[in-house]
């Protein structure tokens, strides 16, 4: 069966909802988040505000400087969640298999409804369906969405980022390699700041550079190498994640050479923490236990964990506790072959203690 995957991304979701609710905000640079006079960050910005360089997660004070005419609106999370539920309902009614990726993103599998003689003909069958879906969201919710269509999750997501807002992009199997060529390596799933730096260090800047790279990428990025090469060629066989209950989330990295270099280990933990935090957010979970795992050259493997009072959701906290565990137990007393970080004891926090700092 040919795979047909759509990635749907709502355009400036929070800001668009605010503009829909309050006509006076339409056409204005709307910044959802803390007011610029207070400590706090931008949650979302309308496209009008983005032209001034305002981005989400930016300190509100900076946003206020970049966009002095910006209209700051306090977030109404309840409203956004309600809206998200409404949109997810519409998606479910299409008959597709739906993976909710975040509050304003979802991945849809239309494979069973779109089968033709070859892969690209199958993908083309999804175009009118996607267009109809956009119309329905516009009619019923008065919001715009951008949809990417491709044969896998990786490409569908890249397609949905390609033309925003209100876009619809199809990446066919025939065109995918050429489509990816000019894009920066960072575009690929799994390439964060650290991996990007490593790749840049080897003069690999675009996905095309990766496609043309003759050597073994494992020399640069370890066990991620073969998968990175597949991603660069637009191949991805990850299935949709369909919300079965998650017990734990973890990642581990086997180093090319055993290492006790603190910088390498910290960078590794930081990346793992970021990945874990992203997954926690996607599933709206908090973790009460953090664990680290180390394996030495002789394959002795140890793991240590700590359980905390307030559920953890942020990468910085996962990283901090990971470092703390390694330090407390003097685990890096000799070079490591493998380093792993994970969280467990997960549940959906209904209540969250807000931090002072």
């Amino acid at each position, binding site marked *: 069966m040919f795979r047909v995957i759509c990635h749907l991304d709502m355009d400036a979701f929070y800001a668009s909802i605010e503009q829909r609710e309050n006509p006076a905000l339409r056409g204005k640079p709307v910044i959802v988040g803390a007011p610029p006079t207070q*400590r706090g960050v931008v949650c979302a910005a309308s496209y009008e505000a983005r032209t001034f360089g305002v981005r989400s997660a930016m300190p509100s004070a900076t946003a206020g400087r970049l966009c002095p005419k910006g209209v700051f609106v306090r977030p109404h999370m309840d409203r956004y969640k309600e809206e998200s539920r409404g949109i997810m309902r519409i998606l479910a009614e299409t008959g597709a298999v739906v993976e909710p990726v975040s509050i304003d993103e979802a991945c849809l599998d239309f494979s069973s409804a779109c089968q033709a003689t070859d892969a690209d003909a199958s993908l083309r069958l999804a175009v009118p369906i996607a267009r109809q879906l956009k119309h329905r969201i516009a009619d019923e919710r008065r919001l715009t969405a951008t949809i990417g269509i491709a044969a896998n999750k990786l490409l569908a997501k890249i397609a949905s980022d390609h033309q925003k807002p209100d876009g619809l992009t199809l990446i066919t199997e025939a065109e995918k390699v050429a489509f990816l060529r000019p894009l920066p390596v960072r575009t690929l799933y799994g390439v964060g700041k650290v991996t990007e730096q490593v790749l840049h260090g080897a003069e690999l800047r675009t996905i095309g550079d990766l496609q043309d790279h003759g050597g073994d990428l494992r020399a640069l990025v370890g066990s991620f190498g073969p998968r990175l090469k597949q991603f660069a060629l637009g191949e991805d066989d990850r299935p949709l994640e369909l919300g079965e209950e998650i017990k734990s989330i973890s990642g581990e990295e086997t180093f090319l050479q055993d290492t006790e270099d603190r910088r390498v280990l910290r960078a590794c933990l930081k990346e793992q923490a970021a990945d874990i935090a992203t997954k926690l957010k996607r599933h*709206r979970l908090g973790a009460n236990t953090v664990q680290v795992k180390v394996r030495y050259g002789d394959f002795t493997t140890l793991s240590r964990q*700590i359980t*905390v*009072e*307030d559920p953890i959701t942020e990468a910085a906290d996962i990283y*901090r*506790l990971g470092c*703390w565990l390694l330090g407390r137990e003097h685990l890096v007393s000799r070079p490591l072959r493998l380093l792993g970080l994970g969280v467990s004891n997960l*549940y*959906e*926090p*209904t*209540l*969250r*203690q*807000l*931090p*002072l*700092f």
Partner: protein
Amino acid sequence: MKFSIAKDQFASGLQSVQNIVSSRTTLPILSNVLLRAEGDRLDLTVTDLDVTIQCDVSATVSRPGTVTLPVKKLFSIVRELGSPELEVEVDDRSVCSLRAGPSFFKINGLPAEEYPPVPEFEEQRIVAMPQEVLGSMLRKTSFAVSTDETRYVLNGLFFSLKEHKITLVATDGRRLALTDEEAEIDGESQREFIVPTKAVVELQRLLHDKGQVEVRATENQVAFMLLGEDGHRAQLISKLVEGTYPNYQQVIPKESKERITLIREELLLALRRAEIMTSDKANSVKLSFSRNQLSITANSPDVGEARENLAVNYKGGDFGVAFNPTFLLDALKALAEEEVFFELTDELSPGVLKINGPFLYVIMPMRMN
């Protein structure tokens, strides 16, 4: 070494120092108290290498000398003795003979030379104040110190001695208690440091309602010298927590929308009742304000709910905010004032509990997801 001493004196001295002995120490001598008999007094010292406590009590010394003895055993013996006076004699092999009326004990000690040296403290004193004042300041803040061992710098009480003021701050990242007092601190001895929790707990135990306390500090140690009215001294020396304390001033709200006067005892009791209906996963109470009324509710899906209304002087609009009841109760219990003032803005902004005096307590709300 030979001396005689009143049972009560000896017991109170041992009581002051014995707490910091750790039961799982690797160095056996750290289970001992160092005794030094000299002149008309007996000095007692105990250390766990981080915190050291020394005190002196009256004794009649017939042969001066030093020894170390297991402090828990010694304290148990002295406490259980039937007669008011006891005699202590130690031979060259550090074996102690203790006689009190019909009772006789032989205790094996270790020579004083093997005891870790007590830190020398040459530093000038920074500030002197009545013990009662420092005790009250500790009571108003120490409950907010973090017990999260992964946040090392918060595992202590922050002391700021500057600008003619002594300020104490404690926080665990979710609430923050602050109090200050005017004090004479000259320009050169202005200091800021973090005193570890264990030392704070012991200091609170040592402080009395009468007498003075002097504070001295070096780069990595602090000493509190307690001068009793009877002329006896006790001293606590502690290592300081290394690291930079968070910038606490920036989390203290400069203004708030509402200031509500509440009767401390009334609020405390109502919160205690509501707290019963909280659970691990629903550990919050909601305070809902409406005209002249505060409604306190707790709600745990698996347990049930509690609701209670208090009459308050409130004229603003209706709003509600949720807090961890333990955080509120900690502060209300530590205070003695009849009235407290709760400054609030909305359900996401910090609340500030104040009294008619130099104290404030910032507490972050809990948010429903």
